[in-house]
């Protein structure tokens, strides 16, 4: 095979968005090298422009070609991957916006932070489309190693060191287990590494063999670590508490979205013949995550730990959509992640702002914040209420859609549990909101009494303000204008051959019968 034929077979156009991000990464690194520390004033905007370019490229691809398999089967740029890559890139953009002043104030250098963040984005994006074991693993490791580095980025801070070490050790162990599972798959498929061929090989094993199930369990260990689903969640609270807050924001959304994309592709393509088994395992994970996340969150006193347990619980909710395995199930996963992107990043942006100004993230220190900083209070309240699933914010519609899809797929127990734990979650979200809003002036916490005057003109504060307002607007308005994103999510499921092949015809009928009703329901409610 000579170079020309090879080049024509690669179909390298599918990874143009990743190429743009890689180029941005290099520009950031070299720009910092040439311009020195002065470059910190313009590098973040270069990164944002690059990421917006990647979004534009994704948009072009969405409307573009039907030939999505690239690199001789190593990468699949189908509609599903485009949507997930979009979510990852969006989360990076917001993370960049909210991290500028934080990194500056923590006395670390910005350009290296940006380049590591961009590398994590590249890893996440490739993970969304990787359809071959080696690519999957390298993408997973790019994302993971960049995440470990970011977690330990404020190296003068002992908590950050602790978080990085914990994350690294648990992450390395879960990667190893995943790799073992992948090696079993390689053996079972007779030396194939492409997911679809592994799927075919697994479906041809007639006798009930134990090896595919063992491989499945091991692979799920790797996936569940990225999703931080219980019982693979142990790292989450400590890492969220210790690492720099913008990093946590990225981990909770970007990394998690990439993990979900990877889960969908891996399980649907390679383990198509073991659907019942992985549904069962994921149901167990979902139950544990919802119960544990929401119950432990009740007892938290630190805002970041609260958000950590909340993110475990949210992963449990999203798993319901995955287990449903119907068109609306997958669509609801995408829509919920899209909603989660804005509300969770908005929440973290507020936590960043508060800790920048006061140096603390204890929940009790938020008391009476309403008097001093209305914008912060408003955004944090709306984001938390949306996470709790209070109408009319976007989180409510996301949850309704998830539960509805689960109900359609006859997952009554899971949905009921989801509803009950949602109600519990509302309690701890509202507790924070109540703390901020209702307190009388004399009940104000010491921290808030010393709250500095709000000034957005300081370096790095404008982007943070933009990020907060963006999250605020999206969280409060996307719920009301939910149809375009829902349509997008549905279209991405319909246009992805791997999902279409997996959705069973019987369920499909039920879904299509109810689908129009459902979207009109939303219109009525709005």
């Amino acid at each position, binding site marked *: *095979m000579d170079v020309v034929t*090879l080049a024509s077979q690669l179909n390298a156009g599918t990874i143009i968005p990743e190429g743009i991000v890689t180029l941005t*990464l290099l520009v950031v690194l070299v720009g910092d090298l040439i311009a020195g*520390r002065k470059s910190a004033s313009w590098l973040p905007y270069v990164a944002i422009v690059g990421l917006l370019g990647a979004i534009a490229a994704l948009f072009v691809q969405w409307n573009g070609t039907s030939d999505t398999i*690239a*690199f*001789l089967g*190593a*990468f699949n740029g189908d509609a599903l991957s485009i949507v997930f890559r979009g979510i990852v890139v969006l989360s990076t953009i917001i993370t960049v916006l909210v991290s500028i*002043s*934080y990194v500056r*104030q*923590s*006395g670390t*250098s910005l350009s*290296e932070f940006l*380049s*590591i963040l961009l*590398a994590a984005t*590249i*890893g996440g994006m*490739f993970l969304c489309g990787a359809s*071959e074991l*080696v*690519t999957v693993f*390298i*993408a997973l490791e*790019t994302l993971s*190693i*960049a995440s*470990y*580095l970011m977690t*330990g980025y*404020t*190296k*003068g*801070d*002992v*908590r950050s060191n602790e978080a990085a070490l914990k994350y690294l050790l648990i992450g390395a162990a879960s990667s190893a287990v995943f790799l073992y599972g992948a090696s*079993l798959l390689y*053996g*079972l498929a*007779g*030396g194939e590494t492409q997911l679809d061929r592994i799927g075919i*090989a697994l479906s041809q*094993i007639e*006798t009930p*063999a*134990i*090896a595919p199930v*063992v491989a499945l369990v091991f692979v799920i260990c790797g996936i569940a670590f990225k999703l931080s689903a219980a019982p693979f969640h142990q790292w989450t609270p400590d890492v969220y508490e210790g690492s720099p807050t913008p990093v946590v924001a990225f981990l909770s959304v970007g990394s998690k979205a990439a993990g979900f994309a990877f889960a969908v592709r891996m399980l649907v393509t390679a383990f198509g013949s073991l659907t019942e088994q992985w549904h069962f395992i994921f149901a167990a994970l979902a139950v544990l995550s919802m119960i544990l996340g929401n119950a432990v969150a009740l007892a938290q006193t630190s805002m970041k730990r609260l958000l950590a347990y909340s993110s475990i619980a949210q992963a449990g909710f999203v798993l319901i959509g995955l287990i449903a395995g119907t068109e609306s199930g997958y669509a609801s996963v995408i829509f919920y992640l899209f909603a989660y992107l804005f509300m969770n990043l908005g929440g973290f942006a507020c936590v960043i702002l508060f*800790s*920048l*100004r*006061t*140096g603390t993230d204890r929940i009790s220190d938020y008391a009476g914040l309403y008097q001093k900083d209305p914008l912060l209070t408003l955004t944090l309240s709306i984001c938390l209420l949306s996470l709790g699933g209070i109408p009319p914010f976007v989180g409510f519609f996301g949850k309704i859609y998830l539960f509805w899809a689960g109900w359609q797929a006859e997952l009554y127990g899971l949905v009921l549990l989801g509803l009950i734990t949602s109600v519990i979650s509302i309690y701890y979200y509202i507790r924070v909101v109540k703390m901020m809003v209702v307190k009388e002036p004399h009940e104000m916490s010491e921290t808030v009494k010393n709250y*500095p*005057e709000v000034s957005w003109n*300081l*370096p790095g504060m404008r982007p943070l303000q933009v990020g907060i307002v963006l999250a605020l607007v999206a969280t409060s308005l996307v719920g009301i204008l939910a149809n375009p994103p829902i349509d997008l999510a549905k279209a991405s499921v319909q246009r992805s051959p791997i999902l279409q092949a997996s959705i069973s015809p019987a369920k499909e009928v039920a879904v299509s019968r109810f689908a129009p009703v459902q979207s009109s329901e939303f219109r009525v409610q709005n």
Partner: protein
Amino acid sequence: MDLAHGVQLVSFGILAAIAIVAALGVVLLQNIVYSAFLLGGVFASMAGMYLLLNGDFVAAAQLIIYVGAVNVLILFGIMLVNKQQDFPAIKGMWIRKGATALVGAGLLVLLAGTIVTTPWAISTATPTGDGSTLKIGEHFFSDFLLPFELASVLLLIAMVGAIVLARREFVPEDTPTTEEELAFKLPERPRETAAIAGGSQTSPE
């Protein structure tokens, strides 16, 4: 059984024995330096296994990467930080050890059972032998091109990150204005220029 086959069988037995004993030593020995050196033994015997499977390039790569780089790095880490220190005995340690042994043994039985009972799809392709280096190169530049290139991003960022973690503390060139001093109270922020020595100034609230 001809000579070559016999030699192969005996070599496999020796290598497997070394690997198992060394791996047990890594886990069970109290002295962490012994564990690290034995880990090198495990890696080296793995290289021997690859050699037995005619993967001479992979064997050499295993040796150079795992023994020459990874293991040396681990040893370096241990020798630069290792402080002989007796840890206080933890009460009920034997329960934890027993549970670990039980889980380990269970996993061993499970995996061994899996390996024995599974109808593995044996690849029918002829072994390449001496041409394996060429074959690996061809794969790198055809169907594994994407992971190969992606690995360069991974290595680049690992290098950047390692330097970030290892270099001296970054001291902001422009001292914060008084306005900023008043407006921001992030605990991670370095308060003194003495940060160049690389100490930690964290003061938990």
